[in-house]
């Protein structure tokens, strides 16, 4: 187990390094450099000076090595637009994204799996109807779905706030329990939107996985041996269908984070997705690179966790 963990950890680091490389070259491929697009009045000589300071006039290979060394030290650069270090900006935004994404992820999986299992076992009109509804949710563009939720629940019916993570100003003056309730109140709509839009994909996978397993041989044997239908579904089929689901977690994570970008935009949730969009608009190269790397790290370590979970559930995997 420990060897496996070490091996996977090593792999994750390698992948992160590759992501950093991809980010570096992809973003450098864009025309210009951060200083040709600065909105602040900068004279030509000041521009040259800044370029020299940040090393933008050096050959690509040398820039790349400098970049790697900085990343290894944990220095992700400086954001000129925000006036702070990239790591500081990310450190502020990351917990907010994790809160939103974490809750939505858990909810989507729980509901999605439950739906998938129920669909597979209760074939017939229930299966068909649920499939259709799920498919519709799956086919709606994320930003449109989020905007509809916002319009219905924050504009027409003023049940929830139209965005942000806390009530501006008043939150700082609320007693602890009220501040907590305020946070929850602001969380509900974005989490609900993200969950609704994401569980469709998971339910689909789970249903397919269950349908795969249910007719299989060992299930038939178990049934012949007299195991109850319920026991079959939950103990045998579900267990077997669950293991690929853990792999699915790893696979759906990047797409999940993609949907998150739209949700954060619509609900002005100041997380990593919003930060990325802001950075891109402001040509904040270091910040863009930083957010892409962090996004990928989330995926990579999400995968790692999924893999460990897999090993924990399925003893066959623990060699």
């Amino acid at each position, binding site marked *: 187990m420990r060897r496996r963990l070490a091996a996977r950890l090593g792999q994750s680091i390698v992948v992160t390094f590759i992501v950093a490389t991809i980010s570096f070259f992809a973003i450098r491929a864009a025309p210009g450099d951060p200083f*040709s697009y600065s909105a602040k009045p900068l004279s*030509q000589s000041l521009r040259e000076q800044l370029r020299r300071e940040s090393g933008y006039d050096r050959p690509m290979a040398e820039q790349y090595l400098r970049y790697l060394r900085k990343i290894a030290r944990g220095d992700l650069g400086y954001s000129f637009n925000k006036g702070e270090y990239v790591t500081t900006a990310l450190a502020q935004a990351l917990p907010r994204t994790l809160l939103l994404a974490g809750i939505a992820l858990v909810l989507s999986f729980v509901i999605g799996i439950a739906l998938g299992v129920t669909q597979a076992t209760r074939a017939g009109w229930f299966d068909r109807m649920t499939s259709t509804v799920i498919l519709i949710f799956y086919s709606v563009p994320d930003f449109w779905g989020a905007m509809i939720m916002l319009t219905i629940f924050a504009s027409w019916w003023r049940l929830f706030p139209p965005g942000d993570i806390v009530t501006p100003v008043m939150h700082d003056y609320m007693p602890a329990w*009220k501040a907590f*309730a305020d946070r929850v109140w602001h969380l509900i709509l974005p989490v609900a939107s993200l969950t609704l839009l994401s569980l469709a994909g998971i339910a689909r996978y789970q249903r397919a996985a269950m349908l795969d397993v249910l007719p299989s041989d060992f299930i038939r044997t178990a049934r012949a041996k007299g195991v109850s239908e319920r026991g079959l579904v939950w103990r045998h089929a579900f267990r077997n269908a669950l293991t690929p689901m853990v792999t699915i977690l790893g696979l759906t994570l990047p797409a999940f984070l993609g949907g998150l970008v739209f949700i954060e935009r619509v609900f002005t949730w100041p997380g990593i997705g919003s930060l990325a969009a802001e950075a891109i608009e402001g040509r904040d190269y270091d910040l863009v690179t930083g957010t892409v790397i962090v996004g990928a790290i989330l995926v990579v370590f999400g995968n790692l966790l999924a893999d460990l979970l897999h090993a924990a559930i399925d003893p066959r995997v623990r060699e």
Partner: protein
Amino acid sequence: MRSSLSFVALAALLTACSGEKPANSSAATGGTVILALFGDAISIYPPSIIDLTGRLVQDQVFDRLAEIGQDLNTVGDKGFAPRLAKSWKWASDSMSIAFSIDPRARWHDGKPVTASDVRFSLNTFKDPKFQSPVASLVTNIDSVHVQDSLTAVLWFKKHTPEQFYDAAYQVIIMPEHVYGAIPPDQMRTSPVARAPIGSGRFKFVRWDPGERLELIADTGNYRGRAKLDRIIITPTPDAAAGATKILTGAADLVDNYLIDRAGELDTSKVARRVDWANFGAILMAMNPNDPKARNAPHPIFGDLRTRRALSMAVDRASMLKNVFGANGKLSHGPFAATVSYADTTLHPAPYDTVAAKALLDSAGWRVGPKGVRMKNGRPLRFSIVVSPSPTRRRYAELMQDQFKKIGAQVDVDQVDNATLTARQNNHDYDALMASYVSDPAASGLRQAWGTEGIGPDGQNFLRYSNKTFDALMDSATASFDPATRQRYTSRALQTVINDAPAIFLYDIFVVLGMNRRIVTAPMRTDEWWVNLADWSIPPDKRIDRDKIGFSPKR
């Protein structure tokens, strides 16, 4: 409060019963106002301020020597109200003015404001190392002499009609003991540049870039404390999000309400509509030079006939109706109709597609295959660079279609604000939708369209140069008789119009969404925020965030 869930409402009730008393707020003062402005401040260090939000913060936190009157009269000193200078005395030859600093004036850190602060401020603005856009506007001020700690004498190079305006309006007074210690090249990253200390009626509290900027009333201010307790700026670049915020009461003011949806403000119980006429105008600049070869004339826009033809090819009145409905204001020329020197009898060439086509023919652009005009093998094709502003983008799209009808193929290049500014400053464009803010004073025209305004520090970004215009403006700014001034100015403006360096489209019309509980003070045409310190909220209309006063956060 109306939008709360029941448990939050209950919680609010409990809080009210817990006996929290706001400190330092009497019935007459109090209130917290949330401004959901379009852009975050780029800089709040006065010499580097170039954007609207930065100016708003500057005007609350800092003072000038004297404040211009509501009518924005820039000639002489009538109408100017005392600020840091409680009085001033002209020398008999008008080559200097002695300003007496109000002895009650204090910086926000408690130290008194002195005459050497005035000298320091002027020198900072003029210092080329800071590259302040103000430097070119205060060239007439030669120096400041510190007569005693409360008297600053400003010496001028020439006696001009607007010399008082130059001294009083353009120079922001900053504390020498705070900013004098930092060398110019370290100012960019210095924390002091992001935490301003001034003498204004609002104090700076904190700035989380991209999230919020907070100001609080300076209760001991020499001019009396502001009526509001607190101003919070939350940048909201998405116009739709801003609209939702103002309509649900999550924000108290939004400064760029979508024109097409302005009707929502009229029917809202929470917000109302405030139209703000200002000095801004939008024009489509045509680069006279080739963006690829700096000093060569532009292959399309280098020819006056082509420029005039393109000006006549667009139906400005219809475009105005489409974008602004009944509310828009057509541009009469290179000025906003609200400035004192505006001449609304002037107008650009009228809409006439027949004449436009004829002009293009005579300029050598013949209609080729697929309807695009050609000249010497080159198609009449160019791009218009535009920012994400919805109105400007719509204009670019409308013009794209109208240009197509006379045989020009136009691409619309939408870029972000930072790129637009950069490309504008680097002259890297064919055509560009530029916003142009008229200086309240006619002398500003010399910087905007005169030869002296060309260069990295000037404001003549189009590099337009016409000796006749320069001569006419010299005559205008030298004369003390208002009628003569206007005559010369009008002729100068007509010169620019005839040269068609740009297509003058519309005066900027801003719809502010404002929460109904706020009672505003008069807004000035150049800055709607100038009297923010006098905005108030009647006690019977106050909501929970108005009542927190100066209580420290938990």
